[in-house]
């Protein structure tokens, strides 16, 4: 089918929801309200690592408008099942903290009240007796002997490959023999790269309204990015049949990966079930910034064996993903990262060790480019470092090493749909950079053996 045959695909038709957006008629979750709606606010940990000795709700209960509080004892299955639902497991994050907290703002107890103001006041009056514990904040320190251990299974890292009967400290990718590559290389170029944790900062914060229906079901209005995923996770936590839940959404005021953690729905539903009334749980901007998941920080060490003509013959990457206090989706991202951190380049010897490490900070989770954004940053800055080391310009180093269809990726998948060469050629043309003829002639469709380049 040629482009000329297409009538609708390829056209810049105006957005379906455009008129709703410009008139303000698009319905976002908070635009709904119900006459007997209650408000849920969360009591959160002030410390990064602590044992919870006791909680006292007596002062909170006296706040006018207070309806009830929920602790871990009220949650039927007090564990997020995010990872087991995508087949990565194990699940280790409580919905509400039981005996300890692992990050500042970790949810401890939910307070439900008639008004938002009453709920906030009641939260401020809940007294927590906490025993502070030493916190670990650096990914490499977390892996050293003697570091405070955050997980019940005894490590500060996600254990990979247990389903294969192994217990690996990291996701491993091995192609060829990097030591041999380093020995053959003309020079070695090393680099350390560090990204910062950042916030999705969508215009609309995370929110849901859980509403009990006359037939015993719950309707959940939510701005999750994944309706069924959220429904399933919620049902497992509440230990109710899946079909009791009806999730309604589909319109999100900015997602960027920050609305796939199913953080508000389970507890809001529990509150609705316990009170028999609709319950709204909305993240304040402060909660969205501090308590909701971030894009975790990554630390990456590159060691490259390079020939004087610019070819990278061996690449070793050791990465540390700072997952924060809990897994969320980070173990999945580390695998995705491992498949991309060597870059779109043809390198015969590759060794990747990608770790998912726990620290006492706000958990990281999915964000636009999950696992690949930090990889692309590190590897592309490293490419410039290599270029300088061998005395080549940044364009040349990339053309010389660019992958093509038929090449072998480090994770042993054959390259298909490669177009790195073509986008570089197009970008060079855009900025008026005159490429040498050999680069202008290159194509992702021809391997070196077949071409005359």
């Amino acid at each position, binding site marked *: 089918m040629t482009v000329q045959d297409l009538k609708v695909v390829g056209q810049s038709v105006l957005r379906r929801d455009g008129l709703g957006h410009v008139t303000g008629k698009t319905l976002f979750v908070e635009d709904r309200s119900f006459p007997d709606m209650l408000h849920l606010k969360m009591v959160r940990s002030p410390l990064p690592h602590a044992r919870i000795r006791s909680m006292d709700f007596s002062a909170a209960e006296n706040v006018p408008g207070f309806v009830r509080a929920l602790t871990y004892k009220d949650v039927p299955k007090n564990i997020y099942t995010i990872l087991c639902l995508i087949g990565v497991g194990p699940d280790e994050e409580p919905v509400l903290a039981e005996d300890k907290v692992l990050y500042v703002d970790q949810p401890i107890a939910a307070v439900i009240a008639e008004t938002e103001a009453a709920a906030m006041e009641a939260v401020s009056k809940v007294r927590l007796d906490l025993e502070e514990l030493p916190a670990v904040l650096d990914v490499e320190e977390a892996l050293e002997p003697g570091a405070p251990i955050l997980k019940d299974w005894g490590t500060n890292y996600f254990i990979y490959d247990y389903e294969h009967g192994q217990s690996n400290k990291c996701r491993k*990718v091995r192609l060829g023999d990097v030591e041999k590559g380093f020995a053959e290389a003309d020079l070695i170029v090393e680099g350390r790269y560090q990204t*910062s944790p950042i916030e999705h900062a969508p215009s609309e914060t995370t929110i849901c309204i859980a509403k009990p229906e006359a037939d015993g079901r719950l309707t959940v209005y939510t701005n999750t990015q994944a309706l069924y995923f959220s429904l399933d996770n919620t049902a497992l936590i509440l230990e109710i049949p899946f079909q009791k839940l009806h999730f*309604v959404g589909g319109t999100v005021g900015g997602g960027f990966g920050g609305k796939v953690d199913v953080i508000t729905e389970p507890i809001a539903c529990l509150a609705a079930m316990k009170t028999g009334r609709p319950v709204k749980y909305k993240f304040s901007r402060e909660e969205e910034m501090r308590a909701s998941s971030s894009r975790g920080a990554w630390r990456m060490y590159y060691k490259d064996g390079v020939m004087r003509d610019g070819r990278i013959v061996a690449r070793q990457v050791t990465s540390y993903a700072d997952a924060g206090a809990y897994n969320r989706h980070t173990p999945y991202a580390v695998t995705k990262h491992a498949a991309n951190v060597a870059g779109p380049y043809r390198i015969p010897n590759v060794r990747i060790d990608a770790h998912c490490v726990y620290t006492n900070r706000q958990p990281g989770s999915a964000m636009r480019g999950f696992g690949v954004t930090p990889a692309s940053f590190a590897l592309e800055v490293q490419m410039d470092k290599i270029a300088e080391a061998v005395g080549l310009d940044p364009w040349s180093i990339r053309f010389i090493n660019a992958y093509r269809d038929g090449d072998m990726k480090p994770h042993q998948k054959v390259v298909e*749909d490669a*177009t790195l060469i073509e986008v570089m*050629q197009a970008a060079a043309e855009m900025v008026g950079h005159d490429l040498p003829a050999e680069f202008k002639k290159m194509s992702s469709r021809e391997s070196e053996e077949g071409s005359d380049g």
Partner: protein
Amino acid sequence: MAKVRGTGIAAVNYPTGMNLGGDPSQALIHATTTGSFVISLSSTDLGQGLKTVIAQIGAETLGVPFDTVWIDTGDTDTGPHCMGTFASRATHRVGNAVVQAAQEARKTLMEVAADELEANPDDLETDGEGNIRVKGSPDRSVAIVNVALAAHFKYGKTISGRGIYSKPKSGVDPDTGKMDPDSTEAHACTVAEVEVDTETGMVTVLSLKSAYEIGRQVNPELVRSQIGGGSFMGMAHALYETTAPYYPAIDHAPTDFSEYLVPGPAEAPETESVVLEYPSSTGPYGVKGLGEMTANSPIPAIVNAINHALGVRITDLPVTPEKVLRALEEKATAH
């Protein structure tokens, strides 16, 4: 005080789909007796325009005008399963499911039209304007609304279709990491031009010029929207944003927009982009996912440009004025 300029490039790939697969999406289509088609989904639009793009794919496959295709999504009682919108998967997975469903619906549509026109279904074509006609004899035609009515009331047939797309889940070899993690790869190359004030450490991004390859543009303006928004977010990521200004310490975590620095409209650089299309074999009409890639090449391009301007090698994000000044200081004392 000096303002120095630098240029930096970065070239990246981005995989389409959830890592390792196992992320199915379903779609259902039915023709109503008003001449329109409803695509039922549980997919979410995050603002990137999924509802529009999916309607375009559905309309194209059915052969009907865009304005007659409605998207009914966001309700688990009425829409079939969808894994969600993330991993740049939605247009690819949901689009493929819609293509399959639309093909099934179209088959029945053409069969009923063939009966109405007393022709062979293979001799018919949709005109893209709401009619079905005999190829070569445009006067022998029937409006789709009438076909829908005939199907329902006369022939007792449903013009509807079902579709599902899933890339099977791949395992990962524990020793070698051998895996099949994606459905296709999109690519991008960005050239960044920056100006650095060596007295204050402030970086101004003057321009971001990028080439993108995304298989097939379903809606070029929506593609441009992703490119613009993503590259701005990349600039923000490279120069401003952090929830831990003194990482790994947790001190000074921002609580609102007065503390969490993001650039505003006055910081928007000049941007220019060109989009290439090399259709993928797995995407609907050759589509590759785009939404996440757009921040990824600007970030290192900007950092490379700063390093080029100053003759340093900053390797930590965000590249704040403090980091610039420290790098310059380090460079000065090293000589």
